């Protein structure tokens, strides 16, 4: 990000070495838990119990993954999350791109009022119960749409997008206007294509949000067949992981080794569910610095 600074091939300064050590340790601490997930997901119970300090993968066993992939609940939750993610991104992007573009027009009468009304919602809301009652009255209970529509707009992203559109030179639109294009056509044919990388970043942000969605499901979805992936994960990772059940499981496992080690199953679920994020992450990483920079907070 500071590439613009003229920095020739310098030698390692004392500061660089200190920074390298600090950053390296920080990166290690950040990365290690994920590495731990991976090695446990392929571990056999005996391997873990034999080694006091399990840091290197001493065994390799995919039975946890096999068991996970046989679970129909896992597949139905994946399907629900895929639907929510795909439809959700389309919905979120459509309304927030159009809205942010319109809100970037300084001369539009009423614009400041609209912006104030939108910003106000970042600091004041009706609270859980009134929100619950409204969403329930709209018929979103036990409906996948609850994770697509009520969850679908992020005020912070909307503001960043608006600020970004403000940076596009007006002359572009003016020349199209002279050719007789209307504003909808300009947005669709000119503005969106020239800002493709920026749009892609926010589509990915929304995609990650939808993939990680669980709060709306927790509150509005009780029908197990409509549960998204994160609810499935919550059940396998957290609800079943109360200390009591954990002890019970460990005891059962010690008696009949050869069964799948419970943590291995849990960690396998984490690995499989994180694959989409790991796949899109390089794209996210490539663009988000720029996206955030352009937007900043004010504008």
């Amino acid at each position, binding site marked *: 990000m500071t590439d613009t600074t003229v920095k020739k091939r310098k030698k390692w300064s004392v500061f660089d070495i200190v920074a390298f050590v600090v950053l390296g340790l920080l990166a290690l601490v950040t990365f290690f838990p994920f590495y731990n997930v991976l090695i446990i997901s392929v571990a056999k119970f005996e391997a873990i119990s034999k080694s006091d300090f399990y840091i290197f993968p001493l065994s390799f066993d995919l039975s946890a993954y096999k068991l996970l992939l046989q679970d129909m609940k896992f597949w139905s939750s994946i399907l629900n999350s895929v639907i929510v993610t795909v439809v959700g991104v389309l919905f979120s992007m459509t309304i927030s791109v159009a809205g942010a573009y319109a809100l970037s027009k300084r001369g539009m009468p009423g614009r400041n009022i609209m912006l104030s009304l939108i910003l106000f919602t970042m600091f004041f809301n009706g609270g859980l119960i009134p929100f619950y*009652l409204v969403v329930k009255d709209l018929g979103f209970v036990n409906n996948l749409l609850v994770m697509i529509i009520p969850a679908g707009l992020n005020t912070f992203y909307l503001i960043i997008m608006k600020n970004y559109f403000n940076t596009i030179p007006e002359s572009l639109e003016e020349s199209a206007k002279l050719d007789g294009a209307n504003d909808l056509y300009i947005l669709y044919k000119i503005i969106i294509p020239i800002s493709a990388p920026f749009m892609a970043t926010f589509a990915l942000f929304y995609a990650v949000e939808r993939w990680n969605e669980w709060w709306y499901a927790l509150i509005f979805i009780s029908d197990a067949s409509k549960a998204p992936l994160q609810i499935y994960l919550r059940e396998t990772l957290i609800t079943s992981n109360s200390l009591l059940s954990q002890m019970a499981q460990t005891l059962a496992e010690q008696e009949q080794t050869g069964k799948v080690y419970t943590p291995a199953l849990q960690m396998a679920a984490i690995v499989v569910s994180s694959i989409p994020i790991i796949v899109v992450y390089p794209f996210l990483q490539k663009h988000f610095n720029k996206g955030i920079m352009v937007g900043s907070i004010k504008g």
Partner: protein
Amino acid sequence: MADSVTARTPKRSLRTLAPKQSLGKTILQYKYFYLMVLPVLIWYALFSYAPMYGVTLAFKSFNYSKGILGSPWIGLENFQTLLTDPDFRRAFWNTVIISLMKLITHFPMPIILAIVLYEFSRTKMKRFFQTILTFPHFISWVVLSGIIINILSKDGIYNQIIMLFGGDPNSPLVDESAFRPVLYITHVWREIGWDSIIYLAALAGINPELFEAAEVDGANRFRRLLNIAWPGLKSTVAVLLILQVGQLLTQGSSFEQIFNLYSSPVYSVADTIDTYIYRTSFTIGSDFGYTTAVGVVKSIISLILLWAANTFAKKMGEEGLY
């Protein structure tokens, strides 16, 4: 072109241009933009403003069959109950302590990280570190909690290390004195990299010539930080600090993180207003009027905090939020 003139003219000088173009005509000229912004406005009306009306529930005794409108008014009774409810008090103080401590333990971290990354001269490695440090931000608290629970469990890596050094295995997640530090540490772990991006953006906006000039003048690294980098960062820091103080009671006490990590043994130190509202609202015999009142108190305190932080920032000579 009338078009571009109005588009660039600030609002207050519209009046001076009025003879040129009536408001009705301007509105007509922007018709497609109104069409574009309409779905967004409907969304906010439905999901932000309609629930705000529901705040009246706090002054009612909610009856499911009668709905919000039909339920009888009871004045401030819900708020009176709230003041004497020990569970609410506990949740209130937990929220204040957890969010303040999170602010103190987390807020400076991304700024320090951004400065270290900025000063670190190996571009490729810098990108590598950034990639790793921002990653946890994109993983949900559900999954991260699963990982944390596993690490801190009886035979998790944490207790293996403890036992390696001859300590007694323990579980911080059910230990009242250790639970909150777990929240602070895992919060920094997840967000430090992501939050540093905005400071890096602010640093990147500083004219590099300033740094070079300072270097020529013989300023050392610390001087340059103090006199060039910090003034460039200051307003971003102020805005983010105001935002975070304003959202202390909401984001600060992070429902997602606590809800996925806590359990009944640590309610006394971990139960916040949000988790308390959730638990009491969706159990049998819940009183929606009462839990709404709890939510209202939370929102009002948040607004006061936001106002206070903004006023303070302005007194300190920063621009503030509004």
